[in-house]
Structure formats: C-alpha cells, structure tokens
C-alpha cells in the first residue's frame, strides 16, 4: 500500500489526477490493483453544545451538536461525550465501513439525527477493547465546525493498493522507492527527507560493542540515543500511520515504523538499559528459545539468525524483537539497529514459525543496503526532533556488503534490436535520466550505473531494454515476424506415435480422457502386472496424490465409476500418458477401458456388447495398423485384480508389451474390460507397405472340426495347422466353438476353415487333399484330438 499524500513529501505530484496517474503507472508495469480514497460523505466536524442524560437510560446522552449550518439533536452512548467537545459527526446519509448507513431514528423514544464517531467506526483503527473504551474521537479544540472530517483529520488520502510482480515488490513497497517510480514515469526529481542531527560529544563506542558471527548478516549498523521522552507522536506521523492502517503507539515506536515505510528499511529499537553493552549476531542454537514481543515463546534452530546480548537472544533477527529488551514507557536510552539479513533465511524462519511481520516480509522480498545508513540517520533525526533524544556520535558497524556498482555497457542499437524499435542516443539519454540511472556516454557507447535500490536489474542490456521499453510503451510496438528460414515443423517421434495411436483409438470408438499422474497408494497397488517399484513422494500434499503411477488402469477405472454413477452406460475410454518407476525410468503407456455396448440399435436388434474378444479386436487393430501383423501373440496368464480366467499378456516378437483382461469381479461387478500397452514397445521398426496382387487362380476351401480337451488353446491348434499346412495353406480361420450334446464335459469342438491356393497355378484336388490329410494327422497326433465326421 502506498499513501499518495505521503509520496508528495518526496516528489511534486500536486498537479496529477491520482486515478489517471495510477493508469500510467500500471501501463509501465507496476500494477495498481485498487485506488482507495479515504473519504466518507456526510462526515463533518461538530461541537457538542449541550449534553444531558437520556431520560430512559443510565448511559446514553442526548446532545445538541452544532454541525456548522445547523444544530442537531443526537443520542450518544460514549462515556467521554461532554459539552464543548469537538467531535466527528456522521450525518444522515453517511455510509460508514461495513455498509452501515446513518439514518434519522429514535433511540429509546428520543429522536437522534446522526452519530458521533470513534475512529474504529470509520475503519481507521482496529476495533478492540482498548479502542472501544476510549469512546468517541476527541477532535482538537481548534478545529473548525462544519468542515469535512476526513479532510480535517488529513485522512482523506488516496492510497494505491499494489499487486506487483516479484521483482519489484521490494522497491515499490516503500514511499521513497515508489516516488522514484513516479519520477521515472513523469520525468520528475525525487527529494529525500532531512536526516540532519546535532550529535553530542559522547560516543557510542564508549557504551557498546558489536560482533557479528554469521555470514547471514552482511551489514549491521547501530546508533544510540539517550534521554528519550516517550509520548504521543506528532500529528503527521500519527495521521499517516493511521491512513496507512497502522496503529499509532508512541512517538518512538511510531518513528521506527514511519522510517521503514519511508525507506523500506526495517529498524529495530532496543532499550539500551535492559540490553547491556554488547551485541552478538549469530545463528541460533538448535532448541534455543526466545520470547518475542507478542508474548509467545519461540523455539529456534540453527537456520535462524538471532541478535544476542552476548549470551541470550534479545531479538529474532529480521522477524520480531524480544520481550526482554522491548521499548517501554520508561525507556530512556535506545539502541537503533539498521541491518541487512539473508532474505532466504528470514523467509524460512518466518514460514516455519508462522510469524509474519512487516519487517520479515520486507527482508524476505530482498532488501538493498542503499538506504540502511540513510534510514538510521533519518530515525535519529526524527527521534531528536520529536522524542527529545540526544544522538551519540558515531555508528557501530559491521560491513561485509559488496558495494561494487552494477554497470551496464551498451549501444542504443542493441536496445533497438531487442525491442524492434528505433530510438536515438538522445532518446536513450532522456530515458536514463528519467529512471535516475547515472550514465556516461562516449561515441555512441553508454555506460549506465544501476541504483542499488533496483534489486531486479542485472547488468545486461536486456534489463536496460526492459526499462526503456516499459517507459516507451509496449502498445507502441509494431508487430513483425521473425526473419528466419522457412521450414515445416515436425513432431518428436514419440509424440507422433502418440498422435497416430490416439487417432486410431478414437476412430475405433474410444474417448480420450486425461487423469492425474499422482494417485493414492491404494490405486497404485492395483493391477501390478509388472515387477516395478513405485515412487512415493517424500512430501505429498495429500494421501490421494502420493504415488507416481506405473499403470493407467486404476485411473481409468475411476473415470469409469464416475461416469457409471452419473448414468452413462457405454464407457469406452483410453489415455496415453507417461509413467515412472522408482528408478526414474520413463515409460509411456496406452491404457484402454471398455464396457457396455459397442454398437447398438435397439429397435433393429443390433447389439454388439463389449467383451474380451472385442477389446482384443481393438488391441489387434492397433497392432495391425502399426504394421505388426503376425508378430504378436496373446498368452494366458494370471494378473492381480483381473479375472483369473479372462486375462492375458500381450507379446510382440515374444516380448511382453502389455496386458488385457476383464477387471476382477470383486473390484467391480459389471463386465469391464481393460488393456494396457507400452508405447515405447510399439515404436520398433516395421516393414514398408508393399503391393500384393490379388490371386489369379481359384482357391480351395476345406473345413475340419476336432474334439479337444478343454485346456487346449485354439492358438496352439492354429500353430500346428499352419506348420503342417506349409506354403499351400494361405489362411486358417476358426469358425465354430461347440460344447454340449455329443461332446464330453471336459472337451470341446473347434472347427476351422482352411484356404489353399498358389500364386502360379490352379491346385488339384489331389495335392490339396494330401496336405489336408497331413494336417489332420498332425493335429490328432499333437493333441490327441478326434476328427469329427462331417
């Protein structure tokens, strides 16, 4: 939050419409989320002319209040209301924070034409016991009756609520830093506030020694003041802190906050007398304790930084002070700390302890040492002026900070090339001046020095180009296209395969789904058909997203259940996604799930239901499409969570590439079929398509049927038939499976249709019969099968 009235101390913006200015600033990259004006209509200063007790209440008062143009009767319950008091009056029509509309009303029978207000009722203070017991706000007796109350209190400030990108959330969050940003946009100068003091002869080093024993504190400055008189803050500090939303506590505490909001540098004030004569900054010890200002005892570890008095911690560095050295009403002598601490460390400490303060937030975002010295001097100046302090000579310091300036050497042509614009050397000079970046210029060569407060700028010409670009205005860029070689983009091979298979599966009627890579350990434990260990996240967000899956089947089953529960009947889905095992091996998998009807036209009696053989058909279609005809087989196996009698491994060139089967009925009652293939396995080489002429000579088709034991697989029979059939046998097809009458219960009949042909002649019945008889013999011999009579 930035208070624009405050900013006016450092830059002249009295001619600016603050809403328009906010738009300009936002366009240049500092996003102003909201322009807030502390203004309330119908809120005026009044004077209580008469104050009498309410006839029907023991605490209410009936007052006659002069509001300038008239006198109004107003009922008020505050204990401090009295004749002659100047007050803030909310007239009928005023709308107070929380949409509280003030209306004429009767309070216990007595007419009341408004309300006398406390600051918390105006949203300017927190409502708590303390502020409540203070009663209504007592306006200075010199105030003029009838004037706008917020204006009189100087609280009608315009504030900008910022939502700034990370790189600028340090220097834009204090008033002087923000003044520089406005300066760059409006091309105006920034004036820093006074930090003059009249130090006494006595020197700090006579009272105090400093040691820093950690590399997380590169810069530590301390100054000392004596004879402080704790009291109320001057009005301007009180008002500004109030308008900003901070409570005024006393002159000393307010000054430390005030300077922080000016320079962005958090300060810490120790009561010198309770602190002693020594400061040692070090890493905390594991288990070390400190009671912070909020009264809570914090347990520290070696990641934290502490300020100690040589022995015990007196301050949790950059986060919050210790109660033992707190500035109190009796404080006389103060040691002021202005330091730089390691931002990452402060962020970690503050996150771990869940303790956020204005200081810890600022340290966490990064802090420049540029104003560390300025801030401590400014604080001394204000303490001398408003708290009667005497400033001791000298500063105790630890200084390991790298003060090498960041210098960028460049030519304006480089900026033009990066942005695609044309600006001259003179234009660049103007921009650098606006930004407040000192520079040297010689023969077209620039050498710009980056102010330390701009932590976001690295010494690259790109960074200068960005600064120039955002002031130049990105809306002024002209669209061009890169002048590069003309070529056509291509897919990585695995993406290409993914797309090919995806498209094919869709044309086969399966819908693509997208599910989560992270699954619950329960989901991960299902369908483990491979000997793979899984990755469990060391720090998962929740148990249902704790394991990286090695199979997609569980996820598809979840989609199935969701759709089934929403009355979707035919659920045919697939997903192609990467999986990872515990050795971080990547494998892309194609998961399929099918259930319900594949083809249905009820009135017509057309109904193809999904079953094992249909999903097998889909898998074969994919494999054939990819060019693997005759290279794959299905091998009956048992797989966890699949129906033990309805599942198989899928093999390509005798290597296992996936599974197929029905989901085990204990997992899901309905007929649900799944299959999964490894995408990588399908990326192996295949032969190109070759034209094959249709047969010129007639084929001879012959059927045969045998009775087998039930455990004989049809694929085994076909293998034997093929082998025995030799070159003349061009096709074998199973056309009937029969059990029942005339077949024993442990047997079944399989019938095959065999096609014989030759490319160069018409086959004779005799030569076909010879082969046919041979096949029959081999099948009978191999399986002990009986040929059935035709």
């Amino acid at each position, binding site marked *: 939050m930035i208070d624009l009235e405050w900013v006016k101390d450092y830059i002249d913006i009295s001619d600016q419409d603050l809403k328009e200015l906010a738009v300009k600033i936002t366009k240049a990259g500092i996003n102003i989320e909201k322009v807030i004006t502390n203004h309330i209509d119908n809120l005026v200063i009044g004077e209580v002319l008469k104050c009498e007790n309410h006839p029907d209440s023991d605490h209410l008062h009936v007052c006659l209040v002069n509001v300038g143009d008239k006198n109004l009767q107003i009922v008020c319950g505050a204990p401090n209301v009295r004749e002659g008091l100047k007050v803030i009056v909310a007239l009928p029509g005023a709308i107070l924070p929380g949409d509280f509309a003030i209306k004429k009303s009767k309070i216990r029978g007595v007419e009341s034409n408004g309300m006398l207000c406390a600051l918390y009722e105006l949203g300017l203070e927190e409502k708590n016991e303390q502020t409540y017991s203070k009663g209504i706000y007592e306006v200075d007796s010199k105030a003029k009756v009838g004037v706008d109350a917020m204006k009189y209190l100087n609280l009608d400030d315009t504030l900008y609520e910022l939502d700034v990108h990370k790189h600028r959330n340090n220097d834009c969050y204090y008033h002087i830093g923000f003044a520089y940003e406005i300066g760059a946009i409006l091309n105006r100068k920034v004036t820093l506030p006074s930090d003059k003091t009249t130090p006494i002869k006595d020197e700090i080093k006579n009272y105090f020694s400093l040691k820093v024993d950690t590399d997380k504190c590169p810069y530590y400055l301390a100054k000392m003041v004596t004879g402080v008189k704790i009291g109320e803050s001057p009005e301007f500090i009180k008002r500004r802190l109030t308008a900003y939303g901070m409570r005024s506590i006393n002159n000393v505490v307010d000054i430390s906050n005030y300077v922080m909001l000016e320079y962005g540098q958090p300060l810490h004030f120790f009561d010198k007398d309770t602190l002693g004569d020594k400061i040692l900054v070090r890493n905390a010890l594991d288990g070390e304790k400190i009671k912070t200002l909020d009264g809570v005892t914090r347990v520290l570890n070696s990641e934290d930084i502490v300020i100690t008095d040589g022995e015990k911690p007196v301050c949790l560095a950059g986060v919050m002070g210790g109660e033992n050295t707190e500035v109190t009403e009796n404080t006389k002598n103060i040691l002021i700390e202005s330091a730089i601490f390691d931002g990452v460390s402060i962020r970690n400490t503050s996150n771990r302890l869940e303790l956020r303060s204005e200081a810890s937030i600022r340290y966490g975002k990064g802090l420049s040492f540029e104003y560390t010295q300025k801030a401590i001097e400014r604080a001394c100046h204000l303490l001398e002026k408003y708290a009667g302090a005497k400033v001791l000579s000298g500063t105790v310091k630890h200084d390991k900070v790298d003060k090498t300036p960041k210098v960028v050497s460049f030519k304006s042509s480089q900026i033009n090339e990066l942005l695609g614009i044309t600006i001259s050397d003179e234009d660049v000079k103007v921009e650098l001046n606006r930004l407040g970046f000192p520079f040297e210029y010689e023969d077209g060569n620039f050498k710009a020095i980056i102010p330390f407060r701009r932590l976001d700028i690295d010494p690259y010409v790109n960074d200068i180009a960005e600064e120039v*670009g955002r002031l130049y205005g990105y809306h002024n860029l002209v669209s061009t296209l890169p002048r*590069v070689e003309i070529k056509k*983009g291509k*897919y990585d091979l695995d993406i290409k395969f993914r797309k090919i298979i995806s498209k094919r599966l869709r044309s086969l009627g399966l819908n693509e789904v997208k599910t989560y890579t992270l699954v619950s350990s329960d989901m991960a434990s299902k369908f483990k058909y491979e000997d793979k260990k899984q990755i469990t996240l060391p720090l998962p967000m929740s148990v249902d997203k704790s394991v990286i899956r090695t199979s997609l089947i569980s996820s598809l089953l979840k989609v199935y259940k969701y759709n089934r529960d929403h009355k979707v009947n035919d659920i045919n889905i697939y997903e192609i996604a990467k999986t990872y095992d515990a050795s971080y091996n*990547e494998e892309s998998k194609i998961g399929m799930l099918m259930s319900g009807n594949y083809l249905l036209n009820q009135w017509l009696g057309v109904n193809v239901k999904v079953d094992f053989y249909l999903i097998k058909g889909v898998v074969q279609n994919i494999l054939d499409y990819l060019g693997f005809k005759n290279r794959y087989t299905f091998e009956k196996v048992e797989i966890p969570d699949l129906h033990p009698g309805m599942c198989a491994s899928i093999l390509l060139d005798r290597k296992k590439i996936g599974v197929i089967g029905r989901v085990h009925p204990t997992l899901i009652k309905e007929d649900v079929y799944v299959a999964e293939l490894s995408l990588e396995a399908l990326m192996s080489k295949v032969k190109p398509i070759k034209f094959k002429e249709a047969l010129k000579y007639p084929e001879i088709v012959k059927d045969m049927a045998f009775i087998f034991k039930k455990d004989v697989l049809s694929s085994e029979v076909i293998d034997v038939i093929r082998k025995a059939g030799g070159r003349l046998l061009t096709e074998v097809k199973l056309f009937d499976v029969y059990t029942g009458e005339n077949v024993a219960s442990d047997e079944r009949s399989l019938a095959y249709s065999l096609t014989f042909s030759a490319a160069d002649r018409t086959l004779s019945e005799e030569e076909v019969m010879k082969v046919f008889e041979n096949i029959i013999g081999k099948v009978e011999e191999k399986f002990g099968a009986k040929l059935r009579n035709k």
Partner: protein
Amino acid sequence: MNLDKILRDLKNNLESVESLHDLSEVKAHYLGKKGEITSLYSKMKDLSAEEKKKFGALINNVKNEAADLIDNKKKEMENEILNEKLQNESIDISLPATEIIVGAPSILEKMIEDVESLLMSMGYDVVDGPEVEKDEYNFEMLNLPKGHPARDAQDTFYVKGDELLLRSQTSPVQVRTMLAGKGEKPIRMICPGKTYRRDDDDATHSHQFMQIEGLLVDKNISLSDLKGTFDLIAKHLFGEDCETRFRPSYYPFTEPSVEMDITCHHCKGKGCAICKNTGFITVSGGGMVHPKVLENCGYDPKKWSGFAFGFGAERLAMIKYGIDDLRVFYTNDLRESRVFDRKEAN
C-alpha cells in the same frame, strides 16, 4: 391364310393374359414347336423356290412381330411385379439410425493440437520431455537459483531430495533443446505437456495442468517479433477480430518480460465481469530469453537472441469453450467431452 388375323388374335390374347404362366402358354401357342406361327413353315414345302422366299419372309416378319409383342408384354408384367415388390419393401426412413460411434479427443489435447497446427506451419517443432525432471533444468538453468523468491510461487513436488521433481513448468524442455543445439543450431520449438504444482484442486487451481510453451532462438530476434507471432496465434485461436496487447511483466527467464492479453472473448472488448471491465484478458506470458539463460544453455547472447512464450492449455480452453471450472478437464464426464468429436466452426 390370314397372317394379319394371327397377329390380331395374338394381341387379343395378350390383353387377357394375367400371369407370367399365362404368357408362357400364349407364347407356346404361337411360337412353340407346333405353334400357330411356327407351323406355317411346314406349309412352305410345296411352294416354288421363289414363292418360298417371298412367303418365308412374310412368316419371318410375323414371327418377329409376335415375339416382340410377347417380350414387351413380359417386360411390362415383370416391371409391375417388381414395382409391387419394391412397394412392399418400403421402410419408415424416420426410424433411428444405427449410430457409428467415434471417440472424442480430450478437450486439452484438442486445444493443444489447435496451437500445434499453426505453429508447426510456422516451422516450430513439437518436442517432448520428461515430467520427472532435474531441479537444475526446471529452475537453476532458467535463472531461478535455490532460494529465489519466485520458486515459492511454483511450490513444487520434489521426488528425490532437492535434485528431482515433477516439473513445475515445461520450460526445462526448452533447456534440453538448447543444450542439444550446442549453441550452434537455431531453435524453433514448442513443448506442450503436463506440469505439476502444489495447489489444492478447485475451480481455478489444479495440482496438475498443461502448458504450451514455445521458444525461438535465432539471429536478430526482437520483442516486436514476439508481438507479431502472438497476434497470429491469438487470431488463429480466437478469430480474426481478436486484438492483442502487451503489458510489462516479470519472469526470471525472460527480460524484457511481457504479459499478453487478448480482447475479451466474451464481451468482444466492451467490458464485462469476466474481463473485470477492462475489455482484455491475459492468456499468455513471455519475453526475450534472458541472456543468463542463453548463456547457461550454451548460446552466446552476443550472437543469439530469442523469445519464449507460454500458454496454459486449460485457460485457453476455458476461454474458447466457455468452461468455468478447471476440474472439468480431469473429471472426464463423457456427457461433456463427447461433444468435442467434431470439427471447429469455420
């Protein structure tokens, strides 16, 4: 003998024929072996050669005419029968068709392919990369050293210590592509893919989401080139009347950085609740590749320059198809997704 009479009689007979069977009897009566016309030939044997020739020709004519009459009658009758049969076969064409079901793509994949198709035509390769990624590629080489505050915003799922993670962005694929280019090859690529961050799933957050990032590294590339490229993408996705706007922004891996807005798809720039009355919505971020990133990946920033940009696939789809809840993409309600099995509007 009256040949004309034979034909007249035939015509009369044909008129009373009612079935194909009747017709074949009529045909036998006249043209059969002993038929009335056929038998005329036997009467020629006593005639002189000249008379035979004359008479023969006459009979032939009658025979042909009779055959034609019978044939025509046959065709006529067959037509009638066929027409009657076809009439009986008439169906109710309003009854439901047998639906040929083709699966729908995932909405996100459809969105991604839409972007791919344009960018591939502009020479961008589509590159794949691992989802379990090195911290080095996901952060460090992208100018996000350990402790960088911007890492907080991308709160990450670590897989092993602080070395391996589920990538929080697809940018590591850009790093890998640049490393493979060895500082010599110009680069034009996009890398759509899944990314992961520690966010609780709700209407606007998802612990898993998809990015479409692009990178171009070549000679003399400018921010204006990114503007032109973004213009094309925006118009390709949202129509020719879509306008664009650049705003200054910040990303650790680009400098200068911009946020890229399009005119609000919903109100066409007039201002509405969706665009918070600004007329614009942010759809992408990008900028000129940071010289440190170029350097880290082996490209000399003095010779090479480039731009990078990134879209959220979910966000694009939400804008384009009017979806208001991120969870839609991962719930996979088939009633919602099946609609996407169709071509886009023209």
